[in-house]
C-alpha cells in the first residue's frame, strides 16, 4: 500500500473499521486518493466498498480509524460537514425524492430564497446553468419519478456539483446505464477531473476501470487488499486481487470465467423444430404515465433459446415483462405459454403452467426482506409446501438447505432474514428460487439478472442461464448491459418507445450497432 505520491492527497482513510452488529463491513481498510485523479474502488459484493464511502460522506461513522480530507482530520464528521468540505456522494441507491422536481431535488438542503420564500425559479435556472457548464442537460421542472435511470443519475451528479463538490464519490453509477449513457458519464467525470476535481468511482466493470481510472484500490472482505496504478496493471490481476484466487477472463473482458464455467459456445443442435414456448402477439400495455408504454409488441421464443431485449431503461421493458408475468394488465394482445392462452391468467396460474420470473427489482418484488431465506425460497411455491393447510416446516428447511448449497448463498443459514444478505446474495436467493431444483419451468423471464452483482455471482448466474438453455428452457432476457445481452442471447431485440425497433440474430449484432438503434441513430429496418 505504498505508492509514491506525486500530488497532495484529497482523501486519506486509515485503518477504518466498521461493524453492523456481527457483520464486520470494514476491517482496517485504508484508502488514499490524490487530488485530481479518478480513483476506482473495486471488490466483490459485500466487500465493504459502499460502507467505506458512506463513512467518507459522513453518513456513517467508523468504529475506529482516522480520515483526512485535503490534509485536515475529519474523523467522525457528519453529512453537512462533508458537503461543506466539498465531498459529494452519489449513492448506489439514488437519494432523490421521487415526488419532487429535478430543481427541488437539486437544491434541497441548500435552497435559494427570495424574501424568505423558496425561490423555485432560481432553482430551475441553476439546473439549466449547471447543465450548460457540465453537459448534463435536464429540464428542472420534471418530476424525478418521470425520469429514466440515466437521467436520475445525472441529477445526482448535478446535486453534488451544485454543492460545490471537489471530491466526487460515485457508488456503482454505471450499473444501470446504457452504453451511450456510460460514455456520457465518463466524459463528465473526466471533465470534473480536468477541472481539478477528484473522483472516486465504485464499479464492477473492469473495462470501465481500465478505461477511466488512474489508480485502483481493491477491497476484499472488508479489507483493502491491493492498490494498482491502472496503466501498470491488467484486468486479470485486478480480478485476482478481488476474489483472492486465480481467474481467467473471457475475451470480451466483461466477465470472469473460472475453470468450471460451462462454455459460452452454443451447442450445435438447433431447436427450431420445437414449438414455441412463449408467444406474445400485439401486446399493448399501459403504465400510469402512458397508455402505450408497450406498443403492439409481438415475438416468440423457442425452447432452448435465449431472446435478449436491449434498450435504455424506461422504454417499456419493465411493463412488457410484468404483463407477461401477469403482474400488469395487458390492454390488448395475446400472451401464450406453449399452446395455453394466459393473457388473463393470474401469476399463480402462469407459474403453474411453467413460467419462472427473475424480477428486476429484487428488494421490492423479488424478496420479502423480513422473511427468512427459506421462506423466500418458497415464495410462489408455498402451495407445494403445504400439507392440509399447514406449511411443512421440515420440508421447507430441507429444500432451503439444498438450494443454499447449490447456489452458494452466504451465509448459509436458512433462517436468516433476506434483509441481512448482501445484494449479490439476495439476487442468488431469487435465482435459486426461480431456476433451482424445485422449479419445473419451461419459460424464464430474466430481468436484469446480474444487476449490481459481483463478478463471481455474475459468472454463476450466466452459467445458470446457459445451463437452462441447454436444458431446453425458453428464456427472455432483459438487461441494461449490452454485452450481457449479446453474449448470452440467440436473438436480440432493441426496444425503444415501447416498440421493438429491430430483432436480429445475436451473431449479427455488435454493441455499436445496437447502440445506434437504441439512441435512434439508426431507424427500424
Amino acid at each position, binding site marked *: 500500500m505504498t505508492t509514491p505520491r506525486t500530488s497532495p492527497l484529497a482523501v486519506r482513510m486509515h*485503518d477504518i*473499521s466498521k*461493524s*453492523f*452488529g*456481527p457483520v*464486520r463491513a470494514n476491517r482496517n481498510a485504508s484508502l488514499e486518493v490524490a487530488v485530481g485523479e479518478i480513483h476506482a474502488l473495486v471488490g466483490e459484493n459485500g466487500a465493504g466498498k459502499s460502507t467505506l464511502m*458512506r463513512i467518507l460522506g459522513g*453518513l*456513517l*461513522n467508523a*468504529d*475506529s*480509524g482516522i480520515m483526512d480530507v485535503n490534509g485536515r482530520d475529519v474523523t*467522525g464528521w457528519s453529512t453537512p460537514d462533508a458537503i461543506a468540505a466539498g465531498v459529494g456522494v452519489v449513492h448506489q441507491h439514488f437519494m432523490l425524492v421521487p415526488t419532487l422536481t429535478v430543481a427541488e431535488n437539486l437544491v434541497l438542503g441548500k435552497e435559494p430564497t427570495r424574501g424568505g420564500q423558496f425561490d423555485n425559479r432560481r432553482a430551475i435556472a441553476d439546473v439549466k446553468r449547471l447543465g450548460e457548464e457540465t453537459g448534463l442537460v435536464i429540464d428542472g421542472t420534471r418530476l424525478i419519478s418521470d425520469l429514466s435511470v440515466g437521467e436520475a443519475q445525472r441529477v445526482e451528479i448535478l446535486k453534488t456539483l451544485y454543492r460545490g463538490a471537489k471530491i466526487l464519490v460515485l457508488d456503482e453509477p454505471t450499473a444501470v446505464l446504457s452504453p451511450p449513457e456510460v460514455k456520457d458519464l465518463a466524459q463528465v467525470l473526466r471533465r470534473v477531473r480536468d477541472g481539478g476535481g477528484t473522483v472516486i468511482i465504485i464499479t464492477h466493470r473492469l473495462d470501465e476501470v481500465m478505461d477511466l481510472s488512474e489508480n485502483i484500490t481493491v477491497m476484499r472482505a472488508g479489507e483493502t487488499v491491493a492498490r494498482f496504478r491502472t496503466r501498470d496493471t491488467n484486468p486479470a490481476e485486478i480480478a485476482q486481487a478481488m476474489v483472492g484466487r486465480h481467474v481467467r477472463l473471457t475475451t470480451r473482458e466483461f466477465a470472469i470465467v473460472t475453470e468450471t464455467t460451462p462454455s459460452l459456445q452454443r451447442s450445435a443442435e438447433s431447436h427450431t423444430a420445437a414449438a414455441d414456448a412463449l408467444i406474445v402477439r400485439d401486446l399493448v400495455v399501459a403504465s400510469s404515465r402512458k397508455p402505450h408504454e408497450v406498443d403492439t409488441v409481438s415475438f416468440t421464443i423457442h425452447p432452448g433459446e435465449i431472446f435478449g431485449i436491449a434498450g435504455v431503461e424506461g422504454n417499456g421493458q419493465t411493463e412488457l415483462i410484468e404483463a407477461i*408475468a401477469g*403482474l400488469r394488465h395487458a390492454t390488448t394482445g395475446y400472451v401464450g405459454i406453449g399452446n395455453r392462452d394466459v393473457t388473463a391468467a*393470474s*401469476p*399463480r396460474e402462469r*407459474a403453474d403452467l411453467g413460467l419462472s*420470473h427473475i*424480477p428486476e427489482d429484487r428488494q*421490492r*418484488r*423479488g*424478496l*420479502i*426482506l*423480513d*422473511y427468512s431465506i427459506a*421462506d423466500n425460497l418458497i*415464495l*410462489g411455491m*408455498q*402451495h407445494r*409446501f*403445504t400439507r392440509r*393447510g*399447514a*406449511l411443512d*416446516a421440515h420440508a421447507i428447511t430441507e429444500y432451503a438447505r439444498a438450494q443454499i448449497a447449490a447456489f452458494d448463498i452466504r451465509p448459509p443459514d436458512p*433462517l436468516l432474514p433476506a434483509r441481512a444478505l448482501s445484494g449479490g446474495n439476495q439476487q442468488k436467493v431469487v435465482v435459486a428460487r426461480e431456476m433451482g431444483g424445485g422449479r419445473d419451468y419451461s419459460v424464464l423471464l430474466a430481468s436484469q439478472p446480474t444487476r449490481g452483482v459481483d463478478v463471481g455471482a455474475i459468472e454463476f448466474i450466466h452459467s445458470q442461464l446457459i445451463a437452462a438453455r441447454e436444458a431446453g428452457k425458453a428464456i427472455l432476457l432483459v438487461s441494461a448491459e449490452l454485452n450481457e445481452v449479446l453474449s448470452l442471447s440467440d436473438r436480440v431485440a432493441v426496444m425503444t418507445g415501447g416498440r421493438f425497433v429491430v430483432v436480429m440474430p445475436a451473431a449479427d449484432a455488435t454493441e455499436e450497432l445496437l447502440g445506434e438503434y437504441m439512441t435512434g441513430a439508426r431507424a427500424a429496418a
Partner: protein
Amino acid sequence: MKPERREKIEEALFAPLVAILIAFVAGDILMLSFNQSPFVVWRLLLEGSWGNAYGFGQVLYKATTLSFTGMAVAFAYRAGLFNIGGEGQLAAGGLAAALVGFALPVGFPAILAILLGCLGAAAAGGVVGAVPGYLRVRFGAHEVITTIMLNFVVLALLNWFIATKLRVPETLHTPEIHAGAIPRLSAILPAFHGSAANLSVIAVIITAVAMWYYMFRTRGGYELRAVGLQPDAAEYGGISVRRVLFSAMTISGVIAGLGGINFVLGYKYYYEDGFAGGTGFLGIAVALVGRNNPFGILIAALFFATLSQGGLALNAFVPKQMVDVLQGVVIIAIAASVPEVQRILLGARKRLVDKPLSESAAAPTQPPAAAV
C-alpha cells in the same frame, strides 16, 4: 437458534419492565400531588385486582374483551391493514349473539346454543369487517377512514335497532336471551363469586392459539404476512393481494365480533347499547403493546385490565382520572422503550462481538441508527 430465542425473550420482557417502571414513577408523582401515599395506593391497586378472586375475575373479564379486540387489530395489522373499527364490530357481534340467544327456545342444548351464539357474533363482526375490506379492495378506499366512519354508522344502526325494534322499556337493552348463556367462572371456582368472569376466557385462548397457528404455521398466514410486509413481492409470488386483504379485514371483524359474547352471553345475558364503548381503541393499544403476537396480546390485555380494575379500587382515594392518565403514560413508555431497549441490547451484543477482535479502543461515538 437458541440464543436468538433468548434474546427475543429478553427484549420482549425487558422493555415492558422499563416501561412499567416509568409508569410507576409517573404514578407516584400524580399520587403525591393528591397527597396520597404511593405505597398505599399501589398496594390497593394490586389488592383490588390480583389480591382477591373477585378482583382477579374482573381483570379476567375485562382482559377477555380487550384480547378479542386486540387480536382483531393485530390480525389486520399483520396484513398491513389498520382496523380502527373494532368497537362497531364488537357491538355488532354482541347484538347478533343476543339475537341468537333470544331466538332460540328456552331449554335449547346449552353447548349448541353457545356455539350458535358465537357463530352469530362472529358472522356479524365479519360482515362489519368485510365492508371496509371490500371498499379497500374494490375502490381502494383507505381502511383507516372507512373503519372510523363505519364505527359511527354501525353504532347508529345498532342504536336504532335497540331504540325501535327490540328493547325492554325504559332501558337500552334487549330482553334476556333464552339460551346460550356461557357459564360463569364461579360455577367452577366458587371463589370467583360475583365477578363477571366467564368461560369466554376459553374462547379467547382458543382464538389466540388458532390465530398464532394460522399466522405462523399455515400457508394462509404466510401469504397474509407477505402481503403485510411487501405487497408487491406477494403479488409476484402468486398471492392474490386483494383476496388476502379482503379476508384479513373480514377475519379481523370476526375476531372482534366474537368478543361480543363475553358481555352478552357471559355477563349480562342481553345486548346493551354502548357496551363496547372505548374497547376498540384500547384494543389497538393492546395489539401494539402485545407486538401483534396473540400471546403478547393476552399479556397486554391482562395488564390493561389490571390497571382498569385496580383503578376502581383506588377510586375513593384518588380520582379515577389518575388511572386514565396512567394508561396513556404506560403505553407511551412501552412504545418508546421497546425500540430503545432493543438498541441498547443490540449495542451490548455488538460490543461483545467486537472486543476480542479489535485492538482499537475507540468507542463508537454514535449509534449506527443515528445516521438517518
